[in-house]
């Protein structure tokens, strides 16, 4: 049982006796709230989410195409000091990610200098060869990054994964806060919580800042695969809150290398596309010819510099798990600084010694495919049944280059509402970093995902995870 040894963010190592400094108010709130009231509020939250239609489709589960992600009303808290350190580290990491992308699609200095092996970049399926040599407006590739972090102790934060393609989840950060304000207003009197509701504005400002230099009043749109997509709620939520059109591929047309949107008043020129469809589906002429989601000629408009794609095509190379293991080198190479955020120790199974270590310690490790996401196809050694271990052993031997292995971290826990009362559950954290032509924007908050099953370390919503609100406390005024 991992929870026993895990660091609890509310109680520290006190075993529910004394809350950590700064967390007294939350502990008192939790102690004084009658269980029946907690239960009532929890039910009310679920009803509200269902009625709003905040649903999430689980891949491969056609029956339950619309299911809500469970929301837990006990918040998770970061002090202002913890947040300041995190934010500085996030900015550094995202700066390095963008510099890396600009380099590998440009001069490829990092490969020429041998700072990281060339083949893991060039030979990577995420390396978008048709896009090489194309520099997006302002040289920014990954305008929106979601960095997955975990915690194992008071000062021990680790980056688990970088998401530089089309990271999702930010609508939960915002809706969770709305739900908390409605259901537990008293908490916001007890605690001085930084607001997160400016995110749509920050995102809109970021989109405008990277528009091609055509004219003032750039037209930005959000491109969705459509209302059957699992993240559609988020797409509509963000478009609505930014006041921009939510478009599908069929709403856009490219003529003369310019993107037009079909409206009842005739065509309207589009400057920036926040796209929530994968690279492969963007343009059937350049990429997958069977794509019905994309827009024929879109990549040509992008190559011509007439439209900005957010994020740019090809950013997947930066969040590939094989690249992840080199992030410390990448951060050092581009920033000249030591990385402020730590990477989890990673064995690249493509390397012989690492593969041998992984096979010898399979029961202790987490094994992930380098190109996977969403918690699919991974092995959690300590809890895996015998058969899964053997299956992974065979797959590792057959295609070692497809996997990495990491130690099983004792993820921190946060008190969570369960069927048998309040109990510790493991959490992770995904803050969102925006990069515009005019600098970084990080909203003080993020998405906390919680593994609702006792002892489980898998927080993905597709694998039975839920979410919590994440409170960042304001700095307390000094002096007095």
């Amino acid at each position, binding site marked *: 049982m991992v929870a026993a040894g895990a660091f609890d963010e509310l109680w520290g190592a006190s075993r529910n006796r004394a809350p950590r400094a700064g967390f007294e108010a939350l502990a008192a709130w939790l102690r004084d709230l009658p269980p029946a009231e907690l239960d009532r509020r929890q039910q009310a939250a679920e009803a509200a989410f269902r009625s709003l239609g905040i649903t999430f489709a689980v891949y491969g589960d056609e029956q339950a195409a619309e299911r809500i992600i469970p929301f837990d009303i006990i918040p998770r808290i970061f002090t202002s000091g913890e947040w300041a350190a995190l934010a500085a580290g996030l900015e550094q990491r995202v700066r390095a990610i963008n510099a890396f992308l600009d380099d590998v699609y440009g001069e490829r200095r990092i490969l020429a200098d041998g700072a990281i092996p060339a083949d893991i970049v060039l030979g990577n399926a995420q390396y978008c060869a048709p896009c090489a040599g194309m520099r997006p407006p302002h040289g920014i590739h990954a305008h929106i990054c979601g960095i997955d972090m975990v915690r194992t102790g008071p000062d021990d934060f680790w980056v688990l994964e970088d998401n530089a393609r089309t990271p999702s989840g930010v609508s939960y950060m915002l809706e969770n806060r709305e739900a908390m304000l409605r259901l537990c207003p008293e908490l916001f009197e007890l605690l001085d919580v930084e607001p997160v509701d400016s995110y749509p504005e920050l995102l809109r400002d970021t989109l405008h800042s990277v528009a091609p230099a055509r004219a003032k009043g750039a037209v930005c749109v959000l491109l969705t695969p459509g209302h059957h997509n699992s993240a559609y709620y988020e797409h509509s939520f963000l478009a609505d809150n930014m006041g921009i059109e939510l478009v599908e591929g069929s709403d856009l*047309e490219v003529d003369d290398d310019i993107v037009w949107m079909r409206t009842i008043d005739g065509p309207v020129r589009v400057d920036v596309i926040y796209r929530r469809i994968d690279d492969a589906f963007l343009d059937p002429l*350049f990429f997958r010819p069977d794509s019905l989601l994309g827009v024929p000629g879109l990549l040509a408009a992008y190559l011509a510099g007439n439209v900005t794609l957010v994020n740019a095509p090809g950013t997947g190379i930066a969040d590939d798990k094989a690249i992840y293991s080199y992030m410390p080198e990448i951060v050092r190479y581009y920033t000249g600084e030591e990385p402020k955020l730590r990477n989890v120790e990673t064995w690249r199974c493509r390397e012989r010694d690492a593969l041998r270590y992984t096979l010898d310690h399979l029961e202790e490790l987490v094994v992930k495919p380098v190109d996977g996401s969403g918690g699919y196809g991974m092995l959690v050694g300590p809890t895996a049944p015998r058969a899964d271990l053997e299956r992974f052993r065979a797959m590792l031997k057959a295609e070692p280059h497809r996997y990495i292995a990491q130690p099983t971290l004792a993820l921190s826990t946060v008190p969570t509402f369960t069927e048998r009362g309040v109990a510790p559950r493991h959490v992770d954290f995904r803050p969102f970093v925006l990069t515009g032509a005019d600098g970084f924007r990080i909203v003080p908050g993020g998405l906390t995902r919680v593994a609702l099953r006792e002892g489980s370390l898998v927080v993905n919503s597709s694998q039975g995870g839920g979410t919590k609100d994440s409170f960042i406390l304001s700095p307390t005024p000094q002096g007095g």
Partner: protein
Amino acid sequence: MHLSIHYTTAYHYEDPPRRIVQLLRVTPASFAGQSVLDWRIDVDCDAKLREHQDGYGNIVQMLYIDRPMSSLAVSVAGRVLTEDRAGIIQGLPHDLPPGVFIRPTPLTAPGPAIDRLARWTTRRAGPVLDKLHALATRLHSEFQFDTQATAVDTTAEQACDAGHGVCQDFAHVMIATVRRIGLPARYVSGHLFRRDGALVQEAGHAWAEAWIEDLGWTAFDPVNGICTDDAYVRVASGLDYRDAAPVAGARAGGGAEELKVEVRVDRAMRQAQAQSQN
């Protein structure tokens, strides 16, 4: 050789499509052994053409027609001076590092048939160049050229297993096999002057390039079992057919489509003489 190329693609639509967007990779670049003397694209209606260069260095033209057309003809014509350099490709104006061309793609992912061919290739005697020659020769002699057997989305593995196909399939099989033995390889589309007198062809040609450490990119035509020579005009390259195909198109509406392609590759002098006699 001084070659002249006329390449016409004619479409006929049952119902005129509301609009048409096409991506054309039909313009060759000059490099060592290939000089493009003149080259032009003609479209038989009001169309907008925009030129780009993709990451591979291919010249890409976008063709836009924004009104209903019941037919469309795109003609490409030009003259190219070629030299026989035994398939060795040098001096391309833009290129990516060979390391890009090592990974399999959906069309070139290896299976048992490609694995067998790769093992066979590895066992051939001599340096890498000889092994690849052996591979090209084997494909030339054992594979059936058959225009009816495969489609544009046939994979290398499927074609290899079936043992037949068109130049696209030959090229995919060669690429998949070369990558399987650990060398970079890529797909090339272009034109071939037929010394057997078949001046008019129903399609362009395609072949493969493999990266050989001491030689660099070396072009093999597995359909004919040789390295390319001065009868070949190299137009576009990429990881597979999808990245290098001469045309990719989309249209809004239009019902059934009838397509006619005619490629005429001839010696420029002979054609000039023929015209003067008319």
